[in-house]
């Protein structure tokens, strides 16, 4: 009996010693649960939905487009927020941040701040976000990839700078600051208040369409086709844009419209990528003079034809057509009567 009591006491001692440790662990855990989440990102000047509006293009960069990031924090006392940008690397991992080598390079783009509320908002300009890519250069001097590149903007909630991983929120985006290569082999001619240009499509990837750029041709020399500000191989001045975008990378025709009949124009074409970046102007430009022209319908009306005027210009059908419709109606009635007769006989069948 006494031996059994001693055995029970020996088993109880380690449990009693472990209890404070377990209780201490349980009470400490909730205090460590810091969180950081990213809300809906907004821009001062949203781009059209056709231009991948979540990404950053050359215009955003050149115009210092402000982009605002709302955050939600919990248990953030004595913490700091750090701002890191990478292409694909996970900057929440301290070893990755320290490595500082491509492609795992993380760039801290702004000094860490101490949050003063649980829903702070931070605004960054597009060049600020791309600081690591631009390397201190201007947006138009970017000489990196001409295709869309991934971008990861990390918001880290840092307690101890030496901790291996930190709670983070990430904005996944893309950037592209270079337009696609231009179309080639331009040829064109004049139409009514327009110049129609045909070309061989650009061989670049990610081409979303083409735009025509034009200006009155300098001089009347047929062999000399140029216009002020229209320089082949350079990014064209948006002021010289004279067509809507022709969507489709494989399109082969653009129309410069709203031109004056009788004026000779020089027209070049540039390709536009998925993000709305306009590439350099085509190596050759074409000159043509818009002139009044008559299409089929104008000739038809000029010849005395009376058709057209819209669907509301309904006129009674010709007698022959009326007769035909009536005949069709008569046949339909006969068929329906016939079917009704058959249906009656079928339903009269015993057990039907």
């Amino acid at each position, binding site marked *: 009996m006494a031996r059994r009591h001693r055995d029970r006491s020996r088993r109880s001692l380690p449990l009693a010693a472990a209890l404070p440790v377990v209780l201490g662990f349980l009470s400490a855990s909730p205090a460590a649960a810091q969180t950081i989440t990213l809300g809906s990102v907004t821009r001062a000047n949203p781009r059209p939905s056709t231009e991948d509006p979540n990404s950053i293009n050359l215009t955003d960069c050149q115009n210092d487009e402000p982009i605002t990031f709302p955050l939600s924090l919990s248990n953030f006392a004595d913490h700091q927020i750090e701002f890191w940008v990478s292409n694909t690397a996970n900057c929440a991992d301290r070893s990755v941040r320290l490595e500082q080598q491509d492609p795992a390079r993380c760039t801290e783009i702004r000094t860490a701040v101490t949050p003063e509320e649980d829903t702070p908002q931070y605004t960054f300009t597009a060049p600020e976000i791309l600081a690591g890519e631009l390397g201190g250069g201007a947006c138009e001097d970017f000489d990196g990839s001409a295709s869309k590149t991934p971008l990861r903007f990390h918001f880290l909630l840092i307690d101890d700078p030496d901790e291996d991983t930190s709670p983070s929120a990430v904005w996944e985006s893309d950037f592209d600051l270079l337009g696609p290569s231009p179309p080639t082999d331009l040829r064109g001619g004049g*139409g009514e208040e327009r110049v129609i240009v045909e070309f061989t499509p650009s061989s670049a990837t990610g081409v979303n369409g083409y735009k025509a750029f034009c200006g009155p041709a300098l001089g009347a020399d047929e062999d000399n086709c140029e216009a002020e500000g229209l320089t082949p191989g350079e990014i064209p001045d948006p002021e010289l844009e004279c067509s809507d975008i022709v969507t489709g990378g494989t399109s082969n025709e653009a129309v410069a419209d709203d031109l004056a009949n009788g004026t000779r124009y020089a027209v070049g074409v540039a390709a536009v990528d998925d993000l709305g970046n306009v590439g350099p102007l085509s190596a050759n430009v074409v000159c*043509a003079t818009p*002139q009044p022209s*008559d*299409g089929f319908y104008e000739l038809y009306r000029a010849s005395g*034809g*009376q058709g057209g*005027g*819209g669907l509301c210009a309904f006129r009674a059908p010709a007698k022959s057509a009326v007769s035909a419709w009536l005949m069709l109606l008569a*046949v339909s009635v006969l068929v329906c009567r016939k079917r009704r007769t058959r249906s009656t006989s079928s339903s009269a069948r015993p057990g039907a």
Partner: protein
Amino acid sequence: MPQAAHEEHVFQREARRVTRVRRRVSAAAVVCAAMLGAAESAAQGVDELGPYADYRGTERETPQDMAVELRFGRYRPNVDSEFGGTGPYQTIFGTDVRYQFGFEVDWQLLRIPRFGTFGPGLGVEVTRSKGRALLSDGSGERSAQDSTLWVAPLYVVGVLRADVVARETFVPLVPYAKAGVGYALWWSSDGDGLAEASGSKALGTSFGYQFALGVMLLLDFIDEADAKAMDHATGVNNSYLFIEWYVSDLGAGDQMQVGTNTWAAGLAFEF
């Protein structure tokens, strides 16, 4: 009279009456096939004793009451016929051959014994003519600007197919005739949306009649076993190549004349 005997009497009387009607209508249908039906579709469908189907060799065919045609053919609208000589159509679009594509769905409502089928058909086609506009200076030179005319005829026709030859002889041909009315929607663009002239939009409709005569080549003879298998697997009873000559007189008076006199060919399936 007991109730059962009375019902039997009523049924037999109705059946005799229907049989009389069938005979009369069948005879008339052979003479004036388009107007007069006979029995319900018999190679499929229902008669007074209930649904039944035909036999293909020793196997029963699946019910058949529809036909679908996938069509293409030459189409040159008769726009210039109201002007004489070289009209606006030829001036802009030249004399190149233009084509139409379309489809037709026929409901084989009636089967005429030992003759074929008759029923309504609904079809739609579309054709486009494209050319360069002319400079307005009278030089006759072409502008770089396109001018386009689209014509989309829609028609409702009665379709009479005499499949007795293919069914009862070794000749796999089915002659047919169609007659009905057509309604064409047409529009013209000048490379920048709908064209306009003197404030009038280049959009309109034209009405008229149309008829066709054609012949279908039953393809089952190529591989009878496959034809049977396809029937049971997909319900397609017969497949054909066909060619037809047709006339559509769409547009008269102040409507644009967009009808034509031409041929069409294609594939047809009965199911």
